[in-house]
């Protein structure tokens, strides 16, 4: 296991005050509280800075379905692999390369001689398409923050005709509904991801709060931002107040980035779809609208995912608990493969592939490091 990268809080006195406040609030509440965040960057920050170790033991912060790579479904990866096997060049973000489909990943397809290109942005995929007349498909993954960049490119009128998009984009708010509505779920409040909310605005959570009578706090990524967000969230849970609080006002507004939203919804519409290992999420997928059918790889080509499915999942893969981990019912420690058959160098499940996956983050940062000393022995 790798050692933890230690960090000094920018403002230890403020960190200690926030941690003390969390402990006081939890003592008042007097029972365990479970809350969920839905963002890989929040999990990274919490693990890296060891924030969980400063929380009261009765306060459980769960990482929900906040890793876009991890919730990309096996059949979606199969489609991308099939396109490669059918002769297309598939360009995608680096994290997607090793994510397993039913039996193959894009890395496997590449090793078998297929054309797979890792790109940093969709523009690089377009640039690749300009150099050839062969089909170039951008396998587009990610939440709303990334989907807006796909949308803006599809609105351009100078795209090469051989360029299409295989959309596996997902929309976070509907997944919160599914978790909140699960009978076995213990979640009492959500910490929403600051950067997705830059796009959607915090107002989008009002409907959720109304429907599920559950508080939502939008938080940033600095350790102090997260601690402040947690204090606000636990206060709301303790008081039984379903409300949205914006604890990241320096980046997030109520209405969000209107210009980006406008482009997003011109190109995409919400569609029900399966999130890997979790459930069918009503309206959780972003599908390309009919007006852009000529840019939709699913409609331009006859994609046959069965080509890539092979003999089905391996014996190890069926033991993966990613889905249960992402809805807060299990942790990586409940998985018999964690750190044994499944490690970052040789991942079995998507949560061990991505830098935003719970299993990889916990493994890399050594689970729950103790940083109490860093803020002067707060607890």
């Amino acid at each position: 296991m790798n050692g933890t990268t230690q960090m000094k809080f920018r403002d230890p006195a403020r960190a200690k005050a926030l941690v003390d406040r969390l402990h006081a609030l939890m003592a008042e509440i007097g029972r365990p509280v479970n809350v969920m965040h839905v963002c890989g960057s929040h999990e990274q920050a919490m693990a890296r800075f060891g924030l969980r170790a400063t929380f009261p033991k009765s306060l459980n912060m769960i990482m929900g379905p906040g890793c876009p790579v991890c919730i990309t479904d096996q059949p979606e990866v199969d489609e991308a692999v099939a396109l490669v096997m059918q002769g297309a060049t598939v360009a995608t973000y680096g994290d997607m390369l090793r994510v397993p489909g039913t039996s193959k990943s894009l890395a496997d397809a590449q090793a078998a001689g297929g054309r797979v290109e890792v790109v940093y942005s969709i523009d690089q995929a377009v640039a690749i398409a300009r150099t050839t007349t062969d089909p170039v498909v951008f396998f587009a993954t990610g939440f709303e923050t990334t989907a807006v960049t796909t949308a803006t490119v599809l609105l351009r009128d100078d795209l090469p005709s051989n360029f299409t998009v295989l959309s596996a984009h997902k929309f976070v708010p509907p997944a919160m509904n599914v978790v909140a509505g699960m009978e076995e779920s213990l979640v009492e409040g959500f910490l929403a991801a600051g950067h997705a909310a830059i796009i959607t605005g915090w107002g989008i959570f009002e409907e959720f709060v109304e429907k599920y009578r559950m508080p939502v706090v939008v938080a940033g990524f600095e350790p102090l931002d997260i601690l402040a967000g947690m204090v606000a969230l636990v206060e709301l849970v303790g008081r039984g107040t379903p409300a949205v609080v914006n604890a990241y006002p320096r980046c997030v507004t109520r209405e969000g980035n209107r210009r980006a939203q406008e482009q997003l919804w011109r190109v995409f519409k919400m569609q029900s779809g399966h999130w890997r290992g979790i459930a069918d999420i009503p309206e959780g997928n972003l599908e390309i609208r009919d007006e852009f059918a000529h840019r939709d790889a699913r409609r331009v080509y006859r994609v046959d995912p069965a080509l890539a499915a092979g003999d089905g999942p391996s014996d190890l893969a069926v033991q993966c608990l990613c889905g249960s981990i992402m809805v807060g019912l299990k942790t990586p420690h409940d998985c018999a493969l964690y750190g044994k058959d499944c490690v970052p160098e040789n991942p079995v499940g998507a949560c061990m592939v991505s830098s935003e996956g719970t299993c990889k983050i916990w493994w890399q940062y050594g689970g729950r490091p103790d940083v109490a000393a860093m803020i002067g022995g707060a607890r």
Partner: protein
Amino acid sequence: MCLGIPGRIVEITGLTAVVDFWGVRKQVALDLVDEPVKPGDYILNHVGYAIRRIPEDDIEGTLALYEELLRETDGGDLMAEDVAGELGSLGPAHPKGEPS
């Protein structure tokens, strides 16, 4: 991937800006940012696109986390690697807008 990275605009041509990220200059698309931006402004970049202009008062608070991450890279740090990855792979040649 969702963290993004802040940088300072050096110059703007059409919908493309040259942005300085701690001394590394890269091109960033401005199609999505919803406020007018000018050289000297800070923006938050996500996969090659500015998604937000960072207000003056908030620049220091926003930069702090990244400076910490860039300073203390010792390998195996996923967050620092993601940030370094954003820096390293921001394509220098932004193909948008050029006639094909």
